[in-house]
Structure formats: structure tokens, C-alpha cells
């Protein structure tokens, strides 16, 4: 039973251009689902659509989102507010900008407690300190009275996580939670997220552009390109056998020990401007393997293996032109077969991560939630 179920979500600008174009996925409780893509591909807008917090001028056009069996798009705004911060919480890319600068850390956490747990006064204060303690902030009783500007970037992100946890959410949406942080801090924050997840059993939608983050944290991955999910697979499948040419190129662009001394391969061309492609595959212009059909016909979703699907004509025939929606893998492939040692790869695109800072998610079996 999935906790979050997204069906054919379309989000567009008022002028009609589609930012998020017909995407579907689902997340089970205790699972980490990564949405991978470069900036501007629509992954943050997907997250904001789920929260119904789209900026002015952007609207949810169609599709459905079910959270715990509740259809979010059918809720009245005031019922949706109960969901936000309560059952689904969100943390953002820039912890420095995402906290209110003129409010103490404690009050910002207490706001959530008052709203979703009816905790006020000393009880709320006590709980705030506990939460800060849980996210690893030293000297929490003192920090709770401080303003965000006194905290470092990593500390601020910890506060954001504490604030998100304050509502005891079932789903945490983390929008590039480590992008703005130093590399060592990134690892700590990701570790914290994993620990928290294993403790609370919440689901996590992890939005990132960093294959390294995916490798360490995600159970399943969806790769987004120009507003569409082009490939969806379990982490093991994706790293063992990326199917979509775009995913393959992403991997090829990684620096690695095996390729030391060679030039990094970049993906030529650039992302097509919003709404500029009316027909054909959106990646066709940058794809080495594209042929005439790619430019003419929009590829359908093709389920290739258990839990793995791709939006590409290359796999159209052999998959029997499968019209299955969203490739929501019904059965999960065995997690054991992890073909090569991912962990030894410095997986951030920048390639600066020290190997020792990479904890193995396999060491946290509860976090993986894969005991089937």
C-alpha cells in the first residue's frame, strides 16, 4: 500500500506552458524516493504541487495526488493546511533563506507544535528543545532562544528538519536539502535524514540533482527531464543498467577513478525552453541514438523490467509498446544484487566527496524498509 500516489500530474504556467507534464509515481511508507534531474526540469514544482504551494502564476492543471488515501486536490484549503506541516512536511534548498530571520528558532518550531499538536507554552518549549536535540543541535536549551542568523548553514538545515519533524509527518519532502551546504555538512545532514527516517518510519521524497545523494539515500529513483519522468527504477536497477539515453549520459558525465586522466563527457546542447517541443521526444535533439521517429512521436511509457520503466522509443518494441502508466513497480526486485561497489565512486558531480564521508545505506536496514 503506497502512502503517496501521484497520478498524471500536470502543472503549468498561467500562459499554458507545462512545467510538470503528466508524471506519476508512488512512495511507500518508510521508503525514500528520489526525483533526480537538472535544475529547471520541474522537480521542485512537482514538490510544491504536492504541497499545493505553487507560486503565483503557476497552477495545478490536472492529475490527482492521494496522500494516505486522501485526494489532496479535492481538499478545501483549510483541510489542506492540516495536511501541510502535519502529515506532510517540507524542507528547502536554502536553509539560510528558509527560516524567518526575525523569529527565534524556538518560536518557529513552536508554531508547528501549536498548529498540529495543540502544544503551547512550556510544553511546546520543552518539545522544541527535544526536537533540536534529536536533530543533533548541541546545547539545545540555549539555541532554542536564538535567532537563525546565529546558526551555521548546516545548523539551520537541522533546525528546518526539526521544524518539519515537529508535526510528526508521514511524508517528508526534501527539496535539494544539501545543495547549499558544504560537502562535509552535506553528509551529516543526509545521515541525519536517514537516521530520522529509520526512527520514525516516514516516507521521503528526496529531490536532488546529485547522483551521489541518490546512491546513498534513495530506494527508488525517477529521472526527470524537461518536465517529464523519463526513467523510473530501483536504485540498484538504475545504477546497474540505466536505460534512458539521458540517464546513461548522466552516468557518463561522472568523474570516476576508472576514467582518471580522461576528459569528462558533457551532454551536448541544452534543455529545450519550456513548451518549445510540441511533438517527439524532448531529449531527441541531444540524443546520440535518436532516429526519425524520436523527432515525430512522443514516446510512451514502457515498463522494461519489474519496477523499471522508461520513456524512450528504444525500448518501445521489446517492451511490447506497454502503455502501463507510470511504471509503478508492483513487485520490487531483490535488493541484494548490487553489482558493483557504488560506494567507492565519488558520486557527486563535482567529485570532491571524500569516500570516508559516504555511509552505506545498507548499514541501516530499517531505513531501507526492504525486508520483503
Amino acid at each position: 500500500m503506497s502512502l503517496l500516489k501521484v497520478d498524471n500530474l500536470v502543472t503549468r504556467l498561467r500562459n499554458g506552458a507545462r512545467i510538470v507534464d503528466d508524471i506519476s509515481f508512488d512512495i511507500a511508507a518508510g521508503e525514500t524516493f528520489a526525483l533526480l534531474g537538472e535544475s529547471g526540469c520541474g522537480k521542485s514544482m512537482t514538490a510544491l504541487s504536492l504541497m499545493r504551494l505553487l507560486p503565483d502564476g503557476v497552477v495545478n492543471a490536472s492529475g490527482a495526488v492521494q496522500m494516505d488515501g486522501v485526494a489532496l486536490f479535492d481538499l478545501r484549503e483549510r483541510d489542506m493546511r492540516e495536511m501541510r506541516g502535519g502529515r506532510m512536511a517540507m524542507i528547502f534548498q536554502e536553509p539560510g533563506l528558509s527560516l524567518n530571520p526575525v523569529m527565534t528558532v524556538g518560536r518557529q518550531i513552536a508554531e508547528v507544535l501549536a498548529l498540529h499538536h495543540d502544544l503551547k507554552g512550556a510544553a511546546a518549549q520543552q518539545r522544541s528543545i527535544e526536537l533540536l536535540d534529536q536533530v543533533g543541535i548541541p546545547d539545545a536549551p540555549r539555541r532554542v532562544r536564538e535567532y537563525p542568523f546565529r546558526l551555521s548553514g548546516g545548523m539551520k538545515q537541522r533546525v528546518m528538519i526539526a521544524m518539519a519533524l515537529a508535526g510528526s509527518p508521514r511524508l517528508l519532502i526534501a527539496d535539494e536539502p544539501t545543495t547549499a551546504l558544504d560537502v562535509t555538512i552535506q553528509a551529516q545532514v543526509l545521515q541525519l535524514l536517514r537516521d530520522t527516517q529509520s526512527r520514525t518510519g516516514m516516507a521521503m521524497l528526496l529531490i536532488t540533482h546529485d547522483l551521489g545523494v541518490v546512491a546513498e539515500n534513495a530506494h527508488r529513483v525517477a529521472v526527470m527531464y524537461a518536465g517529464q519522468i523519463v526513467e523510473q527504477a530501483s536504485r540498484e536497477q538504475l545504477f546497474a543498467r540505466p536505460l534512458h539515453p539521458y540517464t546513461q549520459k548522466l552516468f557518463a558525465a561522472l568523474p570516476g577513478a576508472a576514467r582518471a586522466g580522461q576528459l569528462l563527457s558533457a551532454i551536448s546542447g541544452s534543455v529545450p525552453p519550456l513548451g518549445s517541443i510540441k511533438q517527439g521526444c524532448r531529449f531527441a535533439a541531444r540524443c546520440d541514438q535518436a532516429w526519425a521517429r524520436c523527432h515525430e512521436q512522443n514516446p510512451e511509457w514502457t515498463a522494461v523490467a519489474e519496477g523499471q520503466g522508461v520513456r524512450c522509443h528504444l525500448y518501445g518494441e521489446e517492451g511490447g509498446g506497454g502503455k502501463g502508466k507510470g511504471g509503478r513497480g508492483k513487485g520490487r526486485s531483490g535488493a541484494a544484487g548490487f553489482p558493483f561497489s557504488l560506494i567507492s565512486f565519488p558520486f557527486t558531480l563535482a567529485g570532491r566527496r571524500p569516500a570516508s564521508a559516504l555511509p552505506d545505506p545498507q548499514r541501516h536496514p530499517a531505513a531501507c524498509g526492504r525486508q520483503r
Partner: protein
Amino acid sequence: MSGNTVSTYNTCPMIAYLIRRILYAVPTLVGVNLLTFALFFVVNTPDDMARMQLGIKRVTPEAIEKWKQQRGYDKPLFINSATGGAGKLTDTIFWQKSAGMFVFDFGYSDDGRSIAREIATRMGPSLAVALPTFLIGLVVYVSFALLMTLFRATALDMAGVALCVLLMSISGLFYIIGGQFLVSKLWHLVPISGYAGGGEGFKFVVLPIVIGVVGGIGSSSRWYRTIFIEEIGKDYVRTARAKGLSEPRVMFTHVLKNAMIPVLTGVVVVIPLLFMGSLLTESFFGIPGLGSYTIDAINAQDFSVVRAMVFLGSVLYIAGLILTDVSYTMVDPRVRLS
């Protein structure tokens, strides 16, 4: 704090800060004085001014001398080589006319009255109009701007902005003349002009206040709206919404407090200047405040009064700047006076 300044410095950064800021203000005020002095006495010689004041026809050298002597303009401008010692600097027009200002001794106007006393008595009426205008205006403008911000990007907001642009395109003179005509002549509600102290005064100040508030709606509300809209686009607002807070609560507990920082920059600085009153309103409504005093002085070409008002205005402006900095510490925890 008399004998123990050192420990005061250590224990109270606010007072140390204020003392330093006040000391910094001195060179600025000297600059202001030099500037007005240059404007009034170097661009035109005292002889020119005497000729102006006395009228072209009956100008004799003796009359000019007498005029200058009466007003103390018969000395050299900056350096008096005729006297020795400190008199070299002090027995000059610049020293005589400027030094007193720093202790608020403004000398006498052309009709022989003490400017300082005049200022003291006229501050009351000025304040009686300017302060309520300021306070009511603040509430009205901010509420209107909040309303537009809450309904941003809807027809209501659009209409509000359009109204603001229209209102700010209308000359301030029109508000005064039109308001005077409507309320006083057409509806016979309150007197057109005049002033009285105490409770009597209410009926005289109500119209100038209303007109003052209405006249500022366009530009001020739009300015506040711009600030609010800019603030509402920031990331922490999204965080607040993601917590599940309702839009009004987001506005009032999060946005408003942050928006105070830019708002204070523009608002606090004018508070001391309220003492000066408003030139236009006061002269139109016959309110015997500092604004009408200034206008009368301008029309009568009474340079001592104009210089005194310029100096007073600068002092109040600098006080406003200091007040602004102090007020930041109250709304922005990141600001520390040092």
C-alpha cells in the same frame, strides 16, 4: 552617569552609540551651516540684500549701512583682520550668525522677534496637525497595502494599484483645494481655516488631517504594497505556509514583522520632522505652525528665519536617522549598535 563615563560606555552600548552618532552629526551640521551661509551671504553680498529689502528707489549708502548694522551684517564674512585674537574669527558674520544655532539660539527675525521663542510656540500647532496625519496615515496606508497584498494578483489588487497610480498622479494642491471646497464650502461642516488651542482646535485640524491622509494614499500604499509583495516572495514565507499556517497568519506573524525593516527606513526618519509641520497644509489652512512660519519668511525674504528653519530641519533629520538606527535594533535581531 556623571562621574563614571567609562563604565557607562562599557555597560550601555546604546548610550555610547548615541554619543558617537551625535558627535558625528556635528561636522554635517557645520556643513549645512556653511552651505546656507554661502547661499545667503556669498552668492549675494549683504549690500545686495539690503538693496533688495529697502527697495530699489530709496537706496542711499547710508541706508544700506544702517540696515546692515541693525542686523549685524556690517562685519567681514569669515575673517576679521581688524581685530586680534579670537575676535579674528568670532567677530565675523559667519561666526555671529552660525555659532548660536548649535545651542538653538537663532537670533531675531526681521520684525525683531526672537526666532527661538517663535519656534517654541509654533511647534504645538504644527504637531497638532502633523502627528495625527502621520499616525492615521500609517494605519490607513498599511491596512490598504495589506489588503492589496492578501488579494494579490486578483482583480481587487489590480484595481487597488490602478487607484493608487491615479491618486498619486493628482497634485497635492488639488487635494487641499478640492477638500477645502467640498467640506467647508459645499457641506459647511468645518471652518476653512484658522486654529485654536485645546478642544476647540479639533474642528480646525480635522480637515487638514483628513486631506493630509487622503493625499498620501496613492504613493504610500503603493510603496508599502511593493515592500509586502517583495517580502512575500521570500523563501521563509514558503516555509511558513508549508507549516500549515493560514494566509492571514503568514501575513501578520511572518511577513509584517520582516517588512518592518524596510518600512522603518522610510518612516522613522520623518518622525522628528513632524515638528516642522507641512508648508502647504499650514499655509492653506491658516494654522500658525512652523510650516506657515517658513512660508511667510520665504515670502518676506527673511533670511534669518529661513536659515534657522534649514538648520532646525537638518537637526531633526539627523535625529530621525539616529532614531531609525535605534529602531532597527527593536525589529531586527541581526542589528546590534556598535
